[in-house]
């Protein structure tokens, strides 16, 4: 037997592996939900290939349903990510460690950012179900901040994730982050243009008023 035989039994680290896997799934679902959400709000449906449009016409709420379902699934995965970590025999985190940001000993800053991001995603995601109570316009404004929760989750993954340096995780995260960033910039520029239009109309009205 040489000196480099593997002795690590994955069964000994089952909780930790489950936590890592659910964390990856949570980020993937959250990213998908954010991408769909950004696509929903803008006029990106005009850029959807023609061959896909009939299916969207047949199911007009397809994207919004996908957005909702992936978001809820992501929240479940985030919960699983924290709960399974409780069983880890090496880290031995307490309920406080996984629920209160910046209290855990293991990479406290990045882990804390992840916890904050989880809370942001939970609060702003579930606010969809009380949007009538808080007002749709207000809910929309608040719901936009969910992207901050996603950004914190990405930071948490890259800073505290065990597999962050692995190519199979790093490159998809980098690529999807680029997509989210592009969609976000496009969306913000669209919102900015919409705000400028009424301002221009008002300015015109004022000018006309002055000449009279």
């Amino acid at each position, binding site marked *: 037997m040489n*000196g*480099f*035989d*593997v*002795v*690590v039994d*994955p069964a000994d*680290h089952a909780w930790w*592996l*489950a936590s*890592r*896997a*659910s964390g*990856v*799934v949570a980020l*993937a*679902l959250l990213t998908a939900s954010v991408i769909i959400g950004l696509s929903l709000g803008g006029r990106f449906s005009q850029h959807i290939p023609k061959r896909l449009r009939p299916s969207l016409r047949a199911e007009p709420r397809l994207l919004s*349903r*996908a957005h909702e*379902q*992936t978001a*809820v*699934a992501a929240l*479940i*995965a985030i919960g699983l990510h924290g709960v399974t970590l409780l069983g880890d025999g090496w880290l031995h985190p307490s309920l406080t460690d996984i629920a209160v940001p910046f209290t855990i000993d293991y990479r406290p800053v990045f882990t804390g950012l992840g916890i904050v991001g989880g809370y942001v995603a939970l609060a702003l995601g579930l606010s969809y179900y009380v949007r009538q109570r808080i007002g749709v316009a207000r809910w929309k404004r608040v719901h936009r901040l969910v992207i901050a929760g996603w950004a914190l989750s990405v930071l948490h993954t890259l800073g505290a994730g*065990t*597999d962050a*340096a*692995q190519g*199979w995780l790093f490159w998809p995260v980098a690529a999807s982050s680029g997509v989210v960033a592009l969609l976000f910039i496009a969306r913000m520029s669209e919102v900015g243009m919409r705000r400028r239009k009424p301002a221009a109309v008002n300015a015109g009205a004022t000018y006309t008023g002055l000449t009279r």
Partner: protein
Amino acid sequence: MPATMTERVRAKTAGPRAATARPGLNGGWWKTLKLASGMFVVVLALMIWQMSIGRDPLLGAGSQIARTEPATVQRKLIVKRKVIIEQQPAIATQAPSAVAAPGSAYTGASGGSGGGTVVTQAPAAAPAPVYSSPAPAPAPAPVTRSS
């Protein structure tokens, strides 16, 4: 299979209604849950495989180090014990002749009756021992003081 025209019409009108019925979780939710579960299983399998081949990002290297033989500590010991045994033929040394034999006794009696000289020859001297080791250094000369 609708047999009559009425049944056909009923089937046509009931079709879309049946399709839009939402008994609990609809197909979309199940699809999403299945997709998420499948993703979880795939990622978990990948991590288990990584760990089992010793390439886990955190445990991989650590386990290999733990598995290596315990490190040997070098101790330098200087051993200066050296015994050289040389086989040399013993040189037979002949005893000097009677003229200068150290053991010869000379008794010269000038007086006496008959007054002959008796020279007694000592027996042949034993061969000198052969030392393999070098001869010890001569003792230092005694310090003399002049008073």
